[in-house]
């Protein structure tokens, strides 16, 4: 059972990784859906969007053929509105709240309509925002992910100059590095970063890593404020025997390689086990299958009721033919000649609710074995605890603690996004960036 790359033909790869939610093919198709929208007042969709996009308004603007206005309405609230239209779990956000659900009718395809307007804006390079006159202020943003980019754009609009320091050599953060290729392409991610920075006043410096070639103290000295959008980085370890064997991979690395190296260069096993049931686990499992793995099994320690991924995501995995084993926790990876051979799992049962409010898994003592040649770990990511600690930033298990004004315990140092919440959606990070920018502007007003 070898781990091999180049399992499929070019056209098979093409087909497997094509856009999973294709756009409207014609303007008329978009209009049919736009015209269905009831134009709700104090709309549930808007209230269910972490960035509060005025959904009824942007849809109305599509129906009046004011696409520029529509894109502006979206970007005004969410500068990553284009990316979010592709990666948001809309079934639990805007579309899940659409009032048509209450009539047992299909909700308005809000994401698809949002993509319609924002794609046109990006393709035509519409610059929909004008910077206010320079305030003379300079802000350092650490991390060019959704939180950092959103914060930078909002600050730039306010006439602040922003330097973003990014440890990788591309912007976009997890949007670029951590999402399935059939949702967003690397090219799209690059275009989105370019579109956001086209407002001016934002410079991204790549391969600048905090704690390595970048020091917080220097940033504090050289800039009027600092915003930390450093995300979470380290894959949670399983802490089980055999984790070091050849064939045990980390989901984010696996996903990143697919996007970075090209499909045919990414090796995948015949039989793959994926540990976890979050969005990243699903992205890893479905893409393993789409790379040509014969059998993919998702292993999750709780039941379907507690799953962190959405039903729509789970359905993708099921449609791709992935197996699912509920109430199973990895216990040991057994190898032969240093390579993965078997994954031993403990059978779990549900006990009392834990801190998350979900019933916690309890080991029954029974075990079972899965014959696999690859194990992909997607059991969540860890905050940069050591880095945060070393810089004297107050935190809770690595998650940065903020005051009501998005400020850390260090005056002038602000933060937001995954680094604070421990890992949520892109759209949450965008809102965190906006909040951070507002807090920084308030800070400038106060000093």
């Amino acid at each position, binding site marked *: 059972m070898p781990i091999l790359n180049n399992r499929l033909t070019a056209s098979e790869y093409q087909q497997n990784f094509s856009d999973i939610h294709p756009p409207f093919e014609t303007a008329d198709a978009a209009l049919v859906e736009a*015209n269905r929208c009831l134009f709700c*007042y104090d709309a549930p969709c808007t209230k269910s969007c972490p960035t509060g996009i005025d959904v009824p308004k942007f849809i109305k603007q599509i129906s009046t053929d004011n696409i520029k206005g529509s894109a502006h309405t979206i970007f005004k609230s969410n500068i990553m509105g284009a990316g979010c239209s592709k990666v948001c779990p809309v079934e639990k956000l805007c579309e899940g709240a659409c009032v048509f659900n209450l009539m047992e009718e299909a909700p308005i395809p809000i994401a698809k309509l949002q993509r319609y307007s924002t794609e046109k804006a990006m393709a035509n390079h519409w610059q929909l925002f004008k910077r206010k006159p320079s305030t003379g202020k300079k802000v350092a943003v650490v991390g060019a992910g959704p939180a950092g980019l959103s914060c930078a754009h909002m600050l730039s609009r306010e006439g602040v100059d922003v330097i973003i320091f990014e440890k990788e050599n591309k912007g976009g953060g997890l949007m670029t590095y951590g999402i399935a290729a059939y949702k967003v392409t690397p090219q799209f991610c690059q275009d989105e970063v370019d579109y956001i920075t086209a407002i001016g006043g934002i410079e991204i410096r790549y391969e600048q890593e905090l704690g390595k070639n970048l020091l917080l103290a220097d940033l504090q000295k050289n800039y009027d404020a600092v915003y930390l959008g450093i995300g979470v980085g380290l894959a949670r370890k399983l802490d089980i025997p055999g984790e070091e064997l050849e064939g045990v991979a980390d989901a984010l690395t696996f996903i990143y390689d697919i996007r970075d190296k090209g499909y045919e260069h990414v090796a995948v096993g015949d039989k793959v086990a994926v540990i976890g049931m979050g969005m990243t686990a699903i992205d890893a499992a479905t893409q393993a299958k789409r790379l040509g793995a014969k059998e993919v099994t998702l292993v999750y320690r709780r039941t379907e009721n507690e799953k962190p991924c959405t039903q729509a995501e789970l359905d993708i995995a099921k449609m791709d033919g992935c197996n699912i084993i509920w109430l199973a926790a990895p216990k040991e990876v057994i190898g032969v000649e240093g390579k993965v051979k078997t994954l031993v799992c403990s059978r779990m049962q549900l006990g009392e609710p834990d801190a998350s409010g979900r019933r916690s898994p309890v080991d029954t003592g029974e075990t079972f074995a899965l014959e696999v040649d690859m194990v992909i770990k997607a059991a969540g990511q860890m905050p940069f605890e050591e880095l945060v600690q070393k810089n004297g930033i107050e935190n809770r298990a690595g998650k940065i603690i903020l005051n009501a004004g998005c400020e850390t315990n260090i005056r002038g140092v602000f933060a937001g996004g995954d680094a604070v919440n421990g890992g949520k959606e892109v759209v949450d990070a965008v809102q965190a960036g906006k909040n951070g920018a507002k807090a920084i502007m308030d800070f400038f007003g106060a000093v």
Partner: protein
Amino acid sequence: MADISANLLGIKSPNPYWLASAPPTDKKINVLRAFEAGWGGVVWKTLGSQVKNVSSRYSAVNFNGARVMGFNNIELISDRPLDINLREIEECIRLFPDRAMVVSLMADNDRESWHELIKKVEDTGAHGLELNFGCPHGMTERGMGAAVGQDPEIARMVVGWVMEKATIPVITKLTPNVHSPVPTGKACVEAGTNALSLINTIQSITGIDLNTLVPNPYVAGKSVFGGYCGPAVKPIALKMLTNITQDPITSRVPVSGIGGISTWRDAVEFMLLGATTVQVCTAAMKHGFRIIEDLCEGLNNWMDEKEYKTIYDFIGKSVEKITHWEDLDINYHHIAKINQDKCIHCGLCYIACEDGSHQSINLQYGKPYNTYTIKEEECVGCNLCQLICPVVDCITMEEHRVAPEYLNWKEYQRLGLPLNDH
């Protein structure tokens, strides 16, 4: 099965649906197809002096993605040679003797022209004549069409000429491009017309191309006012029909109703307000003649449910229900009620009432769903929320009379009852 046949002054048709004088009735090929489909009759497209038409001819108003809510045209009367039209009319009558064949006429403004045209048309065996006093574009510039219908005295004179000659029933078609169709209708009835029909089309501009800045329909960089019709004009047509069927003089003659009729329900409404037959054009132009099937079946089923044996059992039944504002019962009051089980929390009732009516709906914030309830003491019973609510029967209007007895405005004033204090 109810009997849906109609008889207007001896012009018989197996159902009350006639195709109005328009492109669908301008030649044998269409008319035969219409008769084959089941249409009760046709009013052949207006014959008269020789004209030439332009390109383009039609334009439309769309609404929220629905096509052709309103429609307009700048087409003139038939541009085919008269003798071909007359020959084809005769052939259609021979092939479908049980269908109504009415011919629309618009002669030059002199007695001889009218007499000559009437003679030729009667020779085809047609069952009736319809005088086109309504066409609002093109022909008016030559003193015909609506130019006749807008001046009661000219209309009276022309009808007089027609009645001198005609031996078959004469229907005079009225224009809506007047403040009321009654003055001209009266003049025509007094001059002897056997029946009236209305409405013809309404002068209009349907829209402007925002790239070229030329209004629709486009003819080499220019446009003209067109005649508006289709579903959008139905309410205006119903109002004008009621003016005619309520007036003591015009109500003496039967009426053929026209204006935006697309469904059997529309037809029933026209008949309830006094029309004996109805004429359809835009709906047939949009969907083809096949719509006659549901027009007949729907009417038949409705009549069966209401136990009406013939159309005469319900024609005109709603005429007396349109009254004067001063006679309305001020003591009648109803209040909106929102069924919380059906409410989908769209907030459309709230914002409509808040910004457009009487601030009578309460918003209780929820995430993501607000709860909306009626402030009964504030509700004036205007219907706005109910009209706007997207859910069937979610908002109902419940009767809460102010007092049991009937009270109109004149009485109210006489009694010195209090006016609003806000």
